């Protein structure tokens, strides 16, 4: 199903985010460089979507456009029927690296977006999310004394604390070692299952996509178009050596154009 047509999400869930014929063209030294072309996708409320594609294809550009950090050259992004025109605290982007504020402690970071709450509400919210991402005992620690995985958990906690309905994650575990990465995936799934936010997750790691996503959006190389949208119909927890898992994984590898053998 190689198509750029809008794909209908699960019938029961409501539509959350929709891109329509989205295009982004960068202007580099007077030359225009198309990065995204005709991206049309519909994402349901509470869905876990992974965006995969060859490196440099424009996955992050797509994510940043959805999050409002970049404006589309053509087409549109709408969330709950409303056109996205800039970043918004109702949806938070988690960056790959250095996203936490190094001048604030763990508590200060989690409370960053909560200045409108009363003191007690704020403290409660912080305590809750410190627990959610398992950073108890590090409340007054500065990020420089945290490991890479802890920093990323902190960033996720800071994002969740403002109660966003969408979480954008831009290769959030890309800079972590492979063991930490696997642990972090489990943590993210656990959080997603309890908090039920829409998650849009950019990765270049095929396994990561098949382990996490409800649906995987495969992008072509630059200028990126939607090559395929793959539904991962395996319930969590996923058995990563089951034939069906391997089948989907192979399918995805094929889509990206990677051989079966190295």
């Amino acid at each position, binding site marked *: 199903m190689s198509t750029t047509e809008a794909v209908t999400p699960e019938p029961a869930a409501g539509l959350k985010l929709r891109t329509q014929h989205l295009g982004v063209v960068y202007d580099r030294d007077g030359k225009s460089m198309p990065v995204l072309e005709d991206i049309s996708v519909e994402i349901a409320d509470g869905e876990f979507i992974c965006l995969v594609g060859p490196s440099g294809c424009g996955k992050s550009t797509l994510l940043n456009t959805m999050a409002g*950090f970049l404006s589309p050259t053509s087409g549109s992004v709408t969330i709950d029927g409303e056109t996205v025109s800039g*970043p918004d605290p109702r949806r938070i982007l988690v960056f790959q690296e250095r996203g936490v504020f190094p*001048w604030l402690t763990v508590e200060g970071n989690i409370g960053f*977006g909560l*200045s409108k709450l009363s003191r007690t509400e704020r403290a409660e919210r912080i305590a809750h999310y410190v627990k959610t991402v398992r950073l108890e005992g590090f409340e007054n620690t500065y990020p420089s004394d945290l490991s890479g995985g802890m920093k990323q958990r902190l960033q996720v906690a800071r994002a969740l604390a403002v109660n966003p309905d969408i979480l954008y994650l831009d290769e959030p575990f890309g800079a972590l070692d492979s063991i930490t990465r696997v642990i972090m995936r489990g943590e993210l799934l656990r959080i997603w299952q309890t908090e039920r936010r829409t998650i849009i997750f950019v990765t270049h790691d095929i396994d990561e996509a098949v382990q996490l996503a409800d649906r995987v959006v495969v992008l072509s190389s630059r200028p990126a178009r939607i090559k395929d949208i793959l539904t991962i119909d395996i319930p969590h927890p996923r058995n990563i050596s089951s034939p069906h898992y391997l089948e989907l994984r192979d399918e995805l590898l094929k889509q990206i154009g990677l051989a079966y053998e190295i």
Partner: protein
Amino acid sequence: MKLPVWLRPILFIAALLAIWEIAVDLHPGQILPGPIGVAGGIVELLQHGLLFKYVIASLFRVTWGFILAALLAIPLGLTLGWYRRGEMAFNPLVQIFRPISPLAWIPIAILWFGVGDLAAIFLIFVGCFFPLLLTAMSAVHNIPAVYINAGRNFGLSPRAFVSRVLYPAVIPQLIVGLRITLGVAWLVVVAAEMISVNSGLGFLIVDARNAGNRYDLVVAGMVMIGAIGLLLDLGMRSLEQIKAFRWRSLEG
């Protein structure tokens, strides 16, 4: 024999002082005093109440010139750094003024402010203003985009954005810039006092020479300048140790 680390510089300085004293003693009739003569000079200044008076006079000028420059240059530099167009308009002017030594301003300072504190403060101001302006501008340029984007994402008002993202993000670099600039201010004050005032450590040095070749007082003045410069630098360094300020060096 293993010496404690802190003892090494002290012993080294003591050895140099001893050599200096011996060298001076071996050549009687020299105008240059030995360390004992210099210590005598410092004691003499203390007895006349001049030492504190001059140190305070110099520090007074440095403080005012430095603080005025910081109050003007830092907000201006941050603003120009943020709005690149403003910077493009301003930058050539800054680059022309920057290489002019503050000492070149001495005649103009005297013309505008007469001989006195104001002229000296003005010279220190000029000496501090441009380095601080450039530090503030480059501090803004060096803010990682990810902090700016994260700040924007949480829907901060422009004011909150400045106080909660921009300001803490530039602080480490500003502190380094302030520390270097305070050193410059201390250099400039001595030169300014040699010409445009009649108190302070710079004045002491020139006056001691003019009023009868009192080289013991000249060197005493130099020693005090060095010692106070060191203390100022240590004070600024202690700011860098504050954890919320020194994140940049820890990022690694």
